[in-house]
């Protein structure tokens, strides 16, 4: 768990550096080696690490627009994910998806940048497991801002009435871009949403990875045993702007400071020390994580960019014949259109 968390944190620090290259001094979202939006998850690591520890490759995870920490914890290929974020041909999706759309079928990981829209496919994965009598489970990650979405509420209901092996994990970082939680939800504790669907709702406070681990163990165990879904809300915090380049002028300074004062990684490190691990052991883990991340980033940057023509591939697995795109100008004069 600790290793997943420090890997994710360091990974994003490195991505941030790379992202800002070419975007300074004036921030231009389309400049530099990584264009487009970039949502970093610093402060969210405990949720992903604590939950994914209990998952196998055959279990499904759907992640939202802020996916890297979840992908790392689920075991998505780090090099190919990085190449994808850099828009390279050897990336997970050949450069077509980018940072919000990471797909790694080897470990059953998928993403969507549309809020809460990963929930129904997770229900579908749970349905497939049930129909086939497999003990696989599915986990949908979403933010606390996403719990107002129809897709989430409908998914809770479908999973509940069908008793499907699904765990919904809400990462509560208090903010949905500029909207504080009290303005988007009538309840402070989002796990209360579970009550209306007669499923267990559990909340874990204070970025506590160990407590997430314990709660997820129970929820995933229940799902695997055929006892239906659980809604698990985890308190995390947002250390940065919503996306890179977000000036956060809407956010009170005290709130930013409070977020920085709470660090799930430090908290877990303290727990591990209390359990007998030496600082050297922890440093060794950090070192290993840094090496792995640096290697992935170097590898990714060396990869070739896709050819422009590759844009036309992959719309279909089985492309229809005669699909037309760029045809030459039609000279109507020759075909009788001109009198």
């Amino acid at each position, binding site marked *: 768990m600790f290793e997943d968390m420090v890997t994710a944190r360091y990974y994003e620090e490195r991505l941030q550096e790379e992202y800002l290259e070419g975007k300074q001094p*004036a*921030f*231009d*979202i*389309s400049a530099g080696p990584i*264009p*487009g*939006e970039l949502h970093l998850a610093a402060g969210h690591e405990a949720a992903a690490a604590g939950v994914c520890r209990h998952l196998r490759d055959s279990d499904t995870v759907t992640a939202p627009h802020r996916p890297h920490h979840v992908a790392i914890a689920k075991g998505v290929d780090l090099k190919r994910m990085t190449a994808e974020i850099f*828009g*390279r041909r050897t990336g997970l*999706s050949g*450069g*077509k*998806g*980018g940072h*919000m*759309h990471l797909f790694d079928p080897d470990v059953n990981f998928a993403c*969507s*940048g*549309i*809020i*809460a*829209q990963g929930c129904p496919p997770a229900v579908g994965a749970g349905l497939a497991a049930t129909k086939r009598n497999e003990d696989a489970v599915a986990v949908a990650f979403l933010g606390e*801002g*996403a719990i*107002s*979405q*129809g*897709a989430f509420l409908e998914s809770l209901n479908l999973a509940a009435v069908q008793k499907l092996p699904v765990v919904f994990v809400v990462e509560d970082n208090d903010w*949905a*871009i*500029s*909207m504080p939680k009290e*303005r*988007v*939800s009538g309840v402070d504790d989002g796990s209360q949403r579970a009550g209306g669907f007669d499923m267990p709702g559990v909340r874990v406070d204070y970025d506590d990875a160990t407590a997430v681990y314990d709660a997820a163990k129970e929820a995933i165990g229940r799902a695997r045993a055929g006892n239906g879904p659980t809604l698990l809300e985890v308190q995390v915090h947002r250390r940065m702007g919503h996306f890179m*380049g977000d000036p956060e002028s*809407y956010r009170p300074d005290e709130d930013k400071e409070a977020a920085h004062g709470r660090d799930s990684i430090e908290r877990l490190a303290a727990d591990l020390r209390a359990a007998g691990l030496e600082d050297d052991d922890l440093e060794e883990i950090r070192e290993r994580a840094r090496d792995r991340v640096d290697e992935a980033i170097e590898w990714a940057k060396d990869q070739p*960019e*896709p*050819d*422009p*023509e*590759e*844009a*036309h591939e992959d*719309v279909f697995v089985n492309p229809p014949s005669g*699909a037309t*795109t*760029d045809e*030459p*100008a*039609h*000279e*109507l*004069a020759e075909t009788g*259109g*001109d*009198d």
Partner: protein
Amino acid sequence: MAQKERQQAVERELTMSRAMVEAIAHEMRENDEVFYMGEDVADYGGIFDSTEGLLDEFGHDRIMDVPISETAYIGAAVGAAQRGMRPIAELMFADFFGVCMDQIYNQMAKNTYMSGGNVSVPMVLTAAVGGTYNDAAQHSQTLYGTFAHLPGMKVVVPSTAYDAKGLMHNAIRDDDPVVYMFHKRLMGIGWMPAPDGPKTPVPDEPYAIPFGSADVKREGSDVTVVTLGLHVHRALEAAESLADDGIDAEVIDLRTLVPLDTETILESVAETGRLVVVDEDYRSHGVTGEIIARVAEEGLADLEAVERVAVPDVPLPYARPMEDEVIPGTEDIETAIRSVRS
């Protein structure tokens, strides 16, 4: 006063977002029934600056941040409009229409018709459109064709600050539902540099640009280029560069897709005989096909050659070389203009 003269009479230049906001603020001052609802429109000022500064003047009651629940708040705008208010609801990215499409095309767009004209829905739905910054397939679409295809809503696509203000005044005053689609790249946002064109002189006083009046942004006698949004500026650039080679292209900015000003297009094609239609939306079953069909129906005899430039039918890819390949650039437009001339 004609538009050109009025524009020349003022020196003050605004970005497209400032111009939009100015019209909204004016209408809100005039009419208490106008209010604005959306995600991050209050304290943030709109992700694309579409409501920048409005919170200060109008407060949270009239510039309303809402939960991420497009079905609920766009549907609520429909309901409030049916009670006679004049809501403006913002769908942050047009790409998100999927989560709330029923409220848009079954409720907002059809209630007037299904009620036999007894119910009106005087609301504006604003949405950001467009790519060119590598945000991939779920955040880069223009979808002009989709909205224009479904009957019952007027569809507005400004390309300059002057147009943005005049069209917004008209949109808020219109008694029908209006979809107002602004291209992110034209807004003049700090983090997404705009081309030169969209920042224009904008008069202080309110003025309404009627829907269904296309604007000839450049006069020319050889080829008619019909386009909208960001691609007006790309087409103008292409026309300027071809002028050096003696090709004189006329550039028509549609400004509204519904209603569509077929007349201006036909008049131009009658002069030039050659038509190029440029769109940042998908190629098939969309705007380019519609324009060509109308010219074929009503002006076939004038038509000597035709070409369309649009996004081939693929979702917008993320990586830069592929995004550049599919979104029409100035050179693609130049090539098309040359090709209808040869």
